[in-house]
């Protein structure tokens, strides 16, 4: 009876796993096939890999979009981790009535749908002459209510004694944050880093509005516009899709262990 249960359990999980990874198989075989074969649902590997890659990097300039996206993601991850972690830390370590209200106001802003902000933000940045400038993408992405919440949540389990000990040793509050807190919270930073990276890497609606020059486009914009062409070249598109998936897979696998630890800390 128990054995049967075990088999059913594994069977169920295997089916779910297969469904989960099928589209990955699809994109990997896709890069090696002709556009026509991809639309016809060809499931085996083909011979058009080099042609597709050549087209993608030549004709569509996917390479530039990839570098643009990567550059933006790195800047946004570094800045937002810095700004949000110190805020999340201070909300726990220096509690006060005013800060509780401020924290509530910040969290409540998560309810504002992005679409509700696009017109004022568009006019704000066009007034500042910053449309088509990467600052328009970077600035709104730094202060993330979710990351502030995430760091605050994780700081609750942080041992406060270490801070008192450091104060006795004469470190100032910023030194304590940088030299004591940050090294101890590596897994929280790793998990938050994954969230920040994915948010920036996937960002679609706002860059679509704020960026106008093809040369400034990010990867999602280019991939999306390739797929919206009248006769889309799916071989080339698959290269773009693979290119937009690989970095996230790498980031995730490198940080996987810390990611799981950081997540466990946040739902305590």
């Amino acid at each position: 009876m128990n054995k049967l249960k075990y088999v059913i359990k594994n069977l169920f999980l295997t089916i779910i796993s297969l469904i989960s990874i099928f589209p990955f198989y699809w994109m990997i075989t896709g890069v090696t096939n002709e556009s026509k074969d991809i639309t016809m649902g060809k499931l085996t590997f083909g011979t058009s890999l080099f042609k597709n890659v050549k087209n993608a990097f030549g004709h569509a300039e996917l390479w530039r979009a990839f570098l643009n996206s990567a550059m933006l993601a790195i800047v946004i991850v570094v800045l937002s981790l810095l700004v949000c972690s110190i805020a999340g830390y201070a909300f726990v370590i220096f509690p006060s009535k005013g800060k509780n209200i401020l924290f509530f106001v910040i969290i409540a802003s998560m309810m504002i749908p992005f679409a509700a902000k696009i017109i004022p933000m568009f006019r704000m940045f066009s007034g500042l002459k910053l449309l088509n400038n990467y600052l328009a993408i970077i600035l709104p992405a730094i202060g993330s209510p979710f990351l502030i919440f995430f760091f605050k949540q994780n700081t609750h389990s942080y041992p406060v004694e270490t801070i008192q000990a450091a104060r006795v040793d004469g470190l100032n509050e910023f030194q304590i944050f940088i030299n004591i807190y940050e090294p101890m919270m590596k897994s929280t930073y790793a998990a938050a880093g994954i969230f920040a990276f994915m948010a920036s890497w996937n960002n679609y609606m706002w860059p679509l509005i704020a960026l106008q020059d093809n040369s400034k486009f990010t990867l999602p914009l280019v991939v999306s516009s390739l797929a919206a062409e009248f006769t889309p070249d799916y071989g080339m598109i698959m290269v773009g899709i693979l290119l937009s998936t690989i970095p996230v897979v790498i980031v995730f696998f490198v940080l996987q262990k810390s990611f799981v630890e950081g997540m466990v800390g946040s739902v305590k």
Partner: protein
Amino acid sequence: MIKKKRYALNGWSMVLAASVLVLVFSYIPMIWAFILSLQTGKGANLAFSGFANYERLLKDTAFWTAIGNTLLYALIHIPIMLIMALIVAVLLNDSKLKLRGFYRTCIFLPCVTSLVSYSILFKNIFGIDGIVNQVLLKCNAIDQAMPFLLDDKWAKLVIIVALIWRYSGYYMIFYLSALQNIDKSVYEAAEVDGCSFFQSFFKITVPLLKPIVYLTSIMALNSTLQLFDEVVNLTNGGPGNATRTISQYIYDLSFNYVPSYGYSAAVSYVVLVLVVILTVIQERITGEKNE
């Protein structure tokens, strides 16, 4: 006294940057959007007109279709997805399971795809000549290829399937992390007392996971009400208006049609109110005793 002041100063200076950024990029646009929603006119030529935009809303069928679609996606996809995520998490939270790390990675993997990318993959997979149709034809389940993305109901279903595929693993990780925080001895004690698997699931697991179920349902609701990337790239709102979401409608009103900023601001305000109301309702239902 001086020390206390310096202490307070330190605290505030640390939250300053993040708070200013959040306030500038969420509350200022929100107030601005409200002012815009009271104005009418084309492009930048705007004049105050009271609640004219809100009156126009009531008669706008495209608006009601978009609202209806968005709510339909939320209503169908969120419960299925969260229950799936919970079941998978409970199954994976078993140290006797040999391939548990492998399953976990596979099931989480969809979350690493970019939203635009997986939407295009699904568009391709569910195309007229796509692999789903090929398989169904081979199995003789259908006589001729199904136009999944060209039919009102099927197109909606494809979007829901895509959403479940993409996000179940994400929420599964939240549940799995929470389950790992539950003391194993609770289950052992229950087993000794003769609790079945289902009894301990409903009597122990579900109540202990309540806060996290609440959190994830809020997150899922919030992201579904803002659905944009998937619909734009999978169906582009079509056929006709059949799959258009409210975010997409706001975008179209502002940037694709003759720009009517005032009216689209009014639409976006309705969404904001909707999000707040639904969040409060959800809190009443799932979060009663959550600190």
